[in-house]
């Protein structure tokens, strides 16, 4: 592989460029008119402006991106995360042009993209799934099913993702009210109004497993990440290994993820997401057929470069390590620095006046912005990821505390103060938290 196009923006493009530069691979970046000042545009070998700020007119504009890929004669396209990364028709078009797609096959992307199909596939694979329905036709059927499994339930859109398209319902009235509005929203947003109902797992933790497969049929898992610190069903902090799970469960969930991947002949990097209850029972939630935002904590504890693995596999080479050689050491935590109010979590777009990251040992920064960059309202508000590492969890927490105590970003609101406080909370320090933690326990004092 000599040249690749990266169909994304911000920090993940920087991240991919870093690996490509080390491997001597040229990079073609694309950017919307809102992003022309961002650092990644300068760091790519070459960059093309592809359209207006709304994603539909730039980062989702398949024709423009594919035209550049052809003109530049790239060997492969890396989709990053979000945007076109899980769009099966895009993957098919890339494959048809004879360009390698750095991700799984279009068929796998398609089957995992529909949550109802994905659940069915996992049941066939023998992987436990959250008790739930098939597609629900109407509100009467939803209510009768909810009464059968018992409230609370989660009403979900088959095509949902990124925390959008799901609603918790406590009783018939709430479900009745939520059904029509959620279905309309799913139709408007995802172009697919298929709905289903799942049992709500109380005090749950979000545990996911990194997997990678090659075209020779080898599949490995790279252990779990705990991503339970969330707001609006979106992740804010992730850590590995997960605190407070037994080594038996840890081994079991890794094997379950591997079985899931094997069943669909998975290739390239992916993540199997599970929800885990208080008794360490775990259930399949969904599979993300791409590199995750939080992949760096796995890289830090296992000592691999997952983007390099993705490139190797896309080229048709076999995985560099066998399962028994994958041995995580130490502890890593990622903090997602967002342009948002640290207590209300309302987005705060605007111009960053100053942004300085302290140069500290055991701290890795994957950033998409610099002093003077603007965070526009068009995209996800993530500014940077701060990844800390330690021999133990306590050590990683101490490094995080030291980092956020002196951290300053001016010009816009950001959630740095949330992390400074979280890292001193007793329950967090004990590792005792569920996905409800931020909503229930933490309000940042102003």
């Amino acid at each position, binding site marked *: 592989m000599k040249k690749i196009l990266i169909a994304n923006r911000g920090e993940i493009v920087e991240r991919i460029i870093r690996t490509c530069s080390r491997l001597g691979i040229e990079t073609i970046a694309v950017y919307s008119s809102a992003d022309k000042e961002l650092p990644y545009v300068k760091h790519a070998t070459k960059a093309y402006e592809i359209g207006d700020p*709304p994603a539909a007119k730039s980062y989702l504009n398949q024709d423009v991106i594919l035209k550049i890929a052809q003109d530049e004669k790239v060997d492969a396209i890396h989709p990053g995360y979000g945007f076109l990364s899980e769009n099966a028709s895009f993957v098919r078009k890339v494959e048809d042009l004879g360009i390698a797609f750095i991700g799984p096959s279009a068929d796998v992307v398609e089957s995992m993209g529909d949550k109802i199909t994905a659940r069915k596939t996992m049941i066939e694979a023998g992987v436990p799934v959250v008790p739930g329905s098939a597609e629900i036709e109407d509100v009467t059927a939803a209510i009768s099913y909810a009464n059968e499994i018992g409230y609370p339930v989660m009403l979900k859109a088959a095509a949902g993702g990124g925390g959008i398209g799901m609603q918790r319902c406590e009783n018939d009235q709430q479900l009745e009210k939520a059904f029509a509005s959620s279905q309309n*929203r799913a139709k408007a947003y995802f172009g697919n109004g298929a709905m289903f109902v799942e049992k709500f797992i109380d005090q749950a933790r979000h545990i996911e497993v990194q997997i990678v497969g090659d075209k020779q049929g080898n599949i490995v898992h790279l252990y779990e990440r705990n991503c339970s610190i969330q707001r609006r069903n*979106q992740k804010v902090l992730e850590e590995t290994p997960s605190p407070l799970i037994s080594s038996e469960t840890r081994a079991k969930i890794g094997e379950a993820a591997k079985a899931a991947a094997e069943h669909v002949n998975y290739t390239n990097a992916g993540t199997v997401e599970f929800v885990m209850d208080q008794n360490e029972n775990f259930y399949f939630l969904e599979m993300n057929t791409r590199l995750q935002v939080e992949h760096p904590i796995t890289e830090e504890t296992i000592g691999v470069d997952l983007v390099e693995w993705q490139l190797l596999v896309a080229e048709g080479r076999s995985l560099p390590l066998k399962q028994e050689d994958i041995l995580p050491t130490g502890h890593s935590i990622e903090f997602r620095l967002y*342009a948002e109010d640290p207590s209300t979590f*309302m*987005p705060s*777009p605007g111009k960053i006046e100053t942004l300085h990251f302290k140069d500290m040992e055991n701290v890795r920064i994957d950033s998409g912005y610099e002093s003077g960059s603007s965070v526009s309202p*068009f995209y996800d508000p993530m500014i940077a990821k701060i990844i800390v590492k330690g021999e133990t969890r306590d050590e990683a927490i101490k490094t995080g505390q030291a980092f956020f105590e002196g951290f300053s970003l001016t010009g816009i609101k950001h959630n740095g103060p949330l992390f400074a406080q979280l890292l001193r909370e007793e329950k967090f320090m004990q590792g005792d938290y569920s996905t409800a933690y931020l909503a229930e326990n933490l309000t940042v004092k102003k």
Partner: protein
Amino acid sequence: MQEVKASMAGTVLNVMVAEGDSITSGQELVMLESMKMEIPIEGVEEGTVAEVKVSIGDFVNEGDVLVKIK
């Protein structure tokens, strides 16, 4: 005439009312999406929808008029 404005810049995810609909105070009229967050826009007073100024997929700036109520 009441003008319902966007509380922040974003994309119109859904329009829940049409011209001529009567609405109650606090009813959700438009759903905006900004930076991966859904932001419901509600009417303040009750009345009748005189005009819907946006459609699904439009990008609006903070302060843009979304719906006029009479």
